[in-house]
């Protein structure tokens, strides 16, 4: 294929990706070093209230934003270097907490709280998703053919459902005196409220993510199980391998590329966790890195969006993604050069 034909085919897609992915990345990078502020002026205002024997007059200095001819607030952007990063990271408070000998207090700072939760979330769900997915795939493979279609249909439901709504549907089972909360209460014989403390919400969020992603792992592993070499399995049986040994030394090595694939996709997606926080309304207890950026981007009570802080936290989130991707990129570069 000539270069010009190739360019004609790929051009529109590249154009979109450059305009809407690469360009925003650059602007976010620049924004994170800038600060947009409304220009304010200080005016002396004298306010008088009628009084006796003389008017009471108070002069005070007010700050008010400067407006342009259309009535919009005028803003300037100044280069502030790493100030936004410092605002997000709050390293002075971290140092203070460490020198006080109470490192737990680091977790009261939003960014570190979000980082802690995002990492726990990603690393705890990973083995669970792979384990549950593999178990379902093996069990379905064991089943009579007639039922497999129905099982796959039911299994796809948690995967296909809108993430926010999936999280909500689990939340509604527990909220207030919901049926599952009262079930737990009657088992444990004590009063439980699932949304009053962090760790119960965290457990529900972990459960939701496994429930949501395990079907994907299952479908991929199930497809992989169809191509297991039957001859190898038979020779393993002749050599006297037990059921467990066959699984451990024949089936799992065969599925290994798929396990790596699922793990990578899951790491990328779980690191970006966001919908859980919205669905479970957990922002008072547990937040994720992406939610932190989202929170900076939503207008606060006075209608301001803290764009520069959002950009700084977005760039910090990116660091994690880059670390995650390096091994993957190194491997595909090696494959490309070798192939």
């Amino acid at each position: 294929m000539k270069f010009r034909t190739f360019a004609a085919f790929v051009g529109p897609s590249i154009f979109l990706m450059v305009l809407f992915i690469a360009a925003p990345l650059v602007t976010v990078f620049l924004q994170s070093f800038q600060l947009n502020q409304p220009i304010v002026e200080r005016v002396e205002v004298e306010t008088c209230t009628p009084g006796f024997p003389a008017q009471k007059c108070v002069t005070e200095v007010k700050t008010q934003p400067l407006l342009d001819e259309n009535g919009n607030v005028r803003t300037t952007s100044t280069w502030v270097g790493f100030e936004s990063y410092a605002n997000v990271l709050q390293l002075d408070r971290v140092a203070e907490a460490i020198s006080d000998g109470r490192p737990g207090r680091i977790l009261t700072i939003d960014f570190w709280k979000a980082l802690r939760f995002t990492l726990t979330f990603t690393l705890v769900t990973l083995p669970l998703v792979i384990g549950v997915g593999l178990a379902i795939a093996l069990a379905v493979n064991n089943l009579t053919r007639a039922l497999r279609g129905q099982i796959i249909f039911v299994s796809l439901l948690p995967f296909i459902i809108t993430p926010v709504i999936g999280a909500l549907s689990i939340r509604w089972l527990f909220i207030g005196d919901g049926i599952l909360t009262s079930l737990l209460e009657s088992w444990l014989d004590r009063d439980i409220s699932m949304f009053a403390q962090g760790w119960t919400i965290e457990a529900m969020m972990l459960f939701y993510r496994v429930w949501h992603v395990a079907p994907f792992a299952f479908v991929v592993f199930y497809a992989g199980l169809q191509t297991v070499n039957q001859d190898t399995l038979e020779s393993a049986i002749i050599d006297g391998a037990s059921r467990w040994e066959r699984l451990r030394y024949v089936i799992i090595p065969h599925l290994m590329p798929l396990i790596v694939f699922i793990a990578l996709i899951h790491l990328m997606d779980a690191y970006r966790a966001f919908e859980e926080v919205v669905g479970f309304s957990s922002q008072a207890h547990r937040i994720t890195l992406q939610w932190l950026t989202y929170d900076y981007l939503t207008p606060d009570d006075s209608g301001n969006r803290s764009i520069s802080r959002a950009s700084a936290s977005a760039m910090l989130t990116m660091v994690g993604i880059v670390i995650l991707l390096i091994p993957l990129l190194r491997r595909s570069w090696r494959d490309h050069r070798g192939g």
Partner: protein
Amino acid sequence: MVTPKALRQPMSLRFGSAAFLAAWCFIAAFPIFWIAVMSFKTPVDAFAANPLDVVFGPETRARGNGLSVIDILAGLAMLFLAARLAMRWLPRMVARYSPPGLSVVGWIIGSLAFGIGFIVVFFVILPPILDVVNGMTGPLGAPVIGLTAEHYEAVWVENDFWRNFVNSLIVTTGVVTVSLTVGTLAGYGLARSGSTLAFWILIVALIFRALPHSVLVAGYLPVFINSAEMLRPILGENAPTLYGQPLAVIAVLVSINQPFTIWMLRSFFQNIPAELDEAARVDGCTHFQAFRWVIMPVMWPGVITTGLFSFLLAYNDFLVTSLLLDAQNQTMVPAIAGYFNRETTTTDQVEAVAAAVSITAPLFLLVMVFQRQIVSGLTAGAVKG
């Protein structure tokens, strides 16, 4: 074929794996099934501690809303009939009346007509008839299961949820059409070119695939809000403010989706032997003609699968739409956040449940119709590595 004795499984293992699967299916379907049940009850019943109360809804029944044994039997019979018609009669009618080569259009019209007919019969014609029958049969006609559609009515009619539905429809249609058009071209180009440039494009796309969407939105927001001023020198007075525009959101979602789309389509194109377009080229086609007249006709399964995943991305998105669309152009998923943020009364909560079920219902139908395509899409990326 007789299973060799060594491969035969002990009873306990078979039983254990079946029990595990049953448990998984229960866990997978239960939350979705349960919100569907909740959405039809009065708030007291929907959030009752006793599951039987939620299912049978005594409070809802006490208010005179419910189904009798006859209603349930008639409803089930209707559903069975409808399913049989959809399986047997509909394909035949479509095959007979659709113009040759346009069976896709025939299917769309056929299923739309079938859906509307079903809604009319099931919700407009059936209830008055059953009311009369219930009145005549005495105890059999007394309601046993509480059921009310008032929350759906409140959500769709009073709260104007249909506006959000229309917005969702606009955004998803736009995203699917544009991303498939752009994506098939790029996927074909990438699959047929073995150059290092193509490799690097794919690798960069993979990095883009991993980006958190909030990073990108942080880049769009300031530009979109101020776009009228920024574009004025180029476009003159009618420069648009991109913030709040469904078209801008379509462009954003298409681009965010592009890395995934081209990877998936590329793997489908690679399954089509290159000899096919070489043959077309020998017969005198240009690359584009070969793509349009030889490759596309055999590519439909791949295109449909990729389209499904584009649809899911656009339909399920919360982050981009909630930040880039204003209230009047809001799609369904961010709109539901409005319900549970203001959940002051339990009625609001049940309305939120009803809205959630309304959003889930189309997805449910989607899995029913396209199960095979979804499965093939999930495995397409994995098997190729």
